[in-house]
């Protein structure tokens, strides 16, 4: 018993020594982080980034869900592109040049199925179904992202209890799932005997590797979570805004020195086939609530990063499997669509609008959809190159092709 105790004490001393060296290493080579926010269900881009110059035709197509032009939020550098009234947090960040909005992002021959479409966004492969995700392939490249990355830290963290395909690497999913950092379960690994080759054997090997990795990462997350204590006052109370709750956890881990490169979180509820807006006030309703949560969460998160001095190290991005139909339906909602805007947030961005307003024809019918201007893989490529400094030779294989680069970042 005595021996065991003293070994434990030595181990914990080693661990805290480990953190100190990580933090000092980190200040020389800042660890760049990407935070992804999946807008789950298909975000209605036309009511998020609102093209004022298209109003006459928009009214004809989707009068029952249109936002009143007097209520939209203006952007400092545009008279024709505006934001949904619920997004004042994002608008303020935009006017502070910490937000870039890329209009009409999509791809050729878009799929209108949630599941096929999200597979395309996650794998970056529109033609064939492949087994890996773009971030999984990126993280598999390992060496290129080693500025400060300790192999003891999870390469990617996904908030929640499931892992999505964008993190799927060649041999395993690169993400660690966490729901909360306040409780800690001391995961023990069971006695393991290497099995025979077989389906059963493969499953056992997977289980053993998964549990032992989870265990080591849980310890690291616990350590990092205990470092950062004070956070921004802009976060709403717990449970009021699940996205804000999750971004708060992410900020805490970043502040605590965790060297994780990718964080993924999501906001559900964007599949607004019906009741997208309140029938009596189109600036309110389900979509407005979601955008308000999104905007508040992003604003609090950015504030928190500033307080920690980490605002230059973190880039955020929203994405969705598709936008929604130009023409609304009779349920005060809209059906699945195609191209939609992506919003990026972070202090190292140049900021501003990329791409033009979509053009809405005069007589839109039910099956008409928005054509894309920017391929989503251009956004991926630009982040891989401009943010993570992935060498040019590695980019095409990560995003499954060559796509034009966007000029997103300050030097």
């Amino acid at each position: 018993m005595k021996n065991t105790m003293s070994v434990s004490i030595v181990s914990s001393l080693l661990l805290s020594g480990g953190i100190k060296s990580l933090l000092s290493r980190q200040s020389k080579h800042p660890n760049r982080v990407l935070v992804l926010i999946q807008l789950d269900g298909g975000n209605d881009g036309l009511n998020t980034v609102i093209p004022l110059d298209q109003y006459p035709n928009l009214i004809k197509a989707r009068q029952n869900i249109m936002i009143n032009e007097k209520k939209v939020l203006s952007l400092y550098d545009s008279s024709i592109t505006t934001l949904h009234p619920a997004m004042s947090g994002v608008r303020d960040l935009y006017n502070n040049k910490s937000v870039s909005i890329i209009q009409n992002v999509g791809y050729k021959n878009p799929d209108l199925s949630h599941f096929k479409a999200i597979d395309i966004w996650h794998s970056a492969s529109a033609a064939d179904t492949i087994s890996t995700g773009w971030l999984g392939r990126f993280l598999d490249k390992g060496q290129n992202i080693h500025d400060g990355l300790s192999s003891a830290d999870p390469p990617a963290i996904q908030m929640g209890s499931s892992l999505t395909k964008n993190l799927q690497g060649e041999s395993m999913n690169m993400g660690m799932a966490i729901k909360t950092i306040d409780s800690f379960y001391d995961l023990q690994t069971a006695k393991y005997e290497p099995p025979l080759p077989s389906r059963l054997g493969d499953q056992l090997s997977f289980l053993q590797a998964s549990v032992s990795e989870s265990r080591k990462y849980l310890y690291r997350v616990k350590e990092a979570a205990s470092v950062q204590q004070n956070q921004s006052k802009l976060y709403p109370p717990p449970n009021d805004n699940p996205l804000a709750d999750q971004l708060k956890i992410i900020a805490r881990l970043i502040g605590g020195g965790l060297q994780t490169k990718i964080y993924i979180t999501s906001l559900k509820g964007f599949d607004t086939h019906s009741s997208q807006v309140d029938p009596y006030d189109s600036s309110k309703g389900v979509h407005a609530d979601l955008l308000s949560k999104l905007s508040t969460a992003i604003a609090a998160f950015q504030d928190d990063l500033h307080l920690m001095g980490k605002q230059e190290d973190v880039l955020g991005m929203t994405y969705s499997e598709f936008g929604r139909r130009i023409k609304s339906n009779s349920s005060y909602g809209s059906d699945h669509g195609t191209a939609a805007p992506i919003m990026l947030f972070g202090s190292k961005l140049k900021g501003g609008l990329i791409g033009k307003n979509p053009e809405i024809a005069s007589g839109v019918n039910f099956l008409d959809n928005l054509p894309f201007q920017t391929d989503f893989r251009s956004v991926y490529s630009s982040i891989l190159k401009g943010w993570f400094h992935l060498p040019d030779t590695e980019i095409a294989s990560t995003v499954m092709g060559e796509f034009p680069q966007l000029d997103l970042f300050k030097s």
Partner: protein
Amino acid sequence: MEKIPRSVFLDIITGRAALDREENEYRKTDVSGQRASKREESISSGLAPYKGAWGQDKIMHLLRRTLFGATQSDYTIFSKLDLNKSLDLLLCQSPDPSPPLNAYGHDGYTDPDIPYGQTWVTCDYVRDGQLDKEEGLLNYNRMQSLTQWWVSRLLCQDSNLTEKMTLFWHNHMSAEFPFIFDAKKAYSYASVIRLHSLGNFKKLFFETVTSSGMLFYLSNDQSTPEAPNENLGREMQELFAVGKGKASGYTQDDVMAASRVLTGWITMHPYGEQHFAPERHDAGDKTFSAFYGNKVIKGRTGQEGREELDEMIDMIFATKEVSRHLCRSLYRWFIYSKIDFNTEDNIIEPLSDILIDNNYEITPVLRALLGSEHFFDNMNIGSQIKNPIDYLIGFCRQFRVASAPSDIVSEYQALEILSRKLNEASMCPGYPPNVAGWPAYYVSPAYDQLWINSDSIVSRYSAIDSLLQNDKLVVKHPYTGFQFDILTFTSELPEPSKPEQLVADSILLFSPVRLRPGQLSFLQNILSPEEEDDSLSWTKAWNAYTNDKGNAEKKAIVMDRLQNYYTYALKLYECQLM
């Protein structure tokens, strides 16, 4: 048998020694090198009826895949039957269960429609149906009652496929309780998939699509001829019927045409039964694509408008892809996640023919699949990771949780706790993540490996921990029976006094894997820590207890050892498989 000193054994059990070893190991290991890649082990066996040896391992394989937590008595019953008679028993549909009750009205809350202790599923609406806080609270209570009731169906299942197939249909044609809002509508969906779970797929399809729950969930009751809502028309084809495999060719125009056929199928506003309203139906002709033979469904007015849906279902089901899509789902559910070319040719194709030849009756297909050489192929034994319901409900059923409630309040409270644990572990009936069901059944390449990650494994293990000890969560009416009854479970094993037998027989019920000698002796040592010292032997302790069951001290000794044993055993990797 290995001798392990008690101090070392205690270190291992409490994790101290393991901790120290792991600390040193994890620093050296590189993350990406640890995983074995999933090898594509192909199997050539097909649908020919299995005629091989019918022993312990094959019997338990069948029971593991068809029941949630086969018990010792299940094993005893089935071991006396041959494969065909076993299938006969498994393919029996259980009678319709009695419906969920108002167990929530005991403590200050009054259901405006029915008194405490009665069912709410058939009550009439006596209010004016305002969508307000009161309705919200009422439906919240009833929805919980519905979820708890479903969990009790899982726990108390008969030894047949009814519950497993009900859950299968719930995954294949998913709906989410929170987005149905009204508990009566949710019940209509939940009861329809149970009623037809071993019946006819085409009939089930019609009943499910037109259930008030599904019509509300997929926004159909707000769809109008002027601006049809595509939700149901799309998901019905993409997920429930044809799928999105290579041979699936329905188009966006088909989605629109289907949505138009479905107009008029609504629920009485704002809550109510399903209903066909001719005035809400688009009575124009609907043209479908070449995939559906360019069929034109003639528009009909009045109540004849309903017939368009029958005609459309006939049209959709005339494509072989419907049968293939269902058979692939059944394969993933019962056998293995990956479907390679061999499986597609040897199993899926002929199985889809069987479904079509039997007019979409499900039992002939299940009989063929579950009685086949392929199903019993050694490669498929232990090839699946248990889903959270298999894992948690399986153990709950084996260890008799919530099986003898004293009153409905205690019973429903216990079920509420269980349903929360299932939710934590990401699989509670009524709460799939979206309309496509659970990702483990369709997201490649990981499939059922998606059940296991750093969060979900913690949820599984902490659920086991709390069920092994007396659950200390706040329960309004403390129900002392809410934990695993490890004594009764152990007593029912064939030879519980002998540690080797106890371990072997219990592991047989938990796992498809034959443990190695090293693992077995480790487990036996938990029961009998020091072989030399006879006074601590398991056999002595067990016999002492069984000869004097009233003696608290003797009971405490065996309980202590059994707790340690099951705490370790249930978390073995091997027990995550089935």
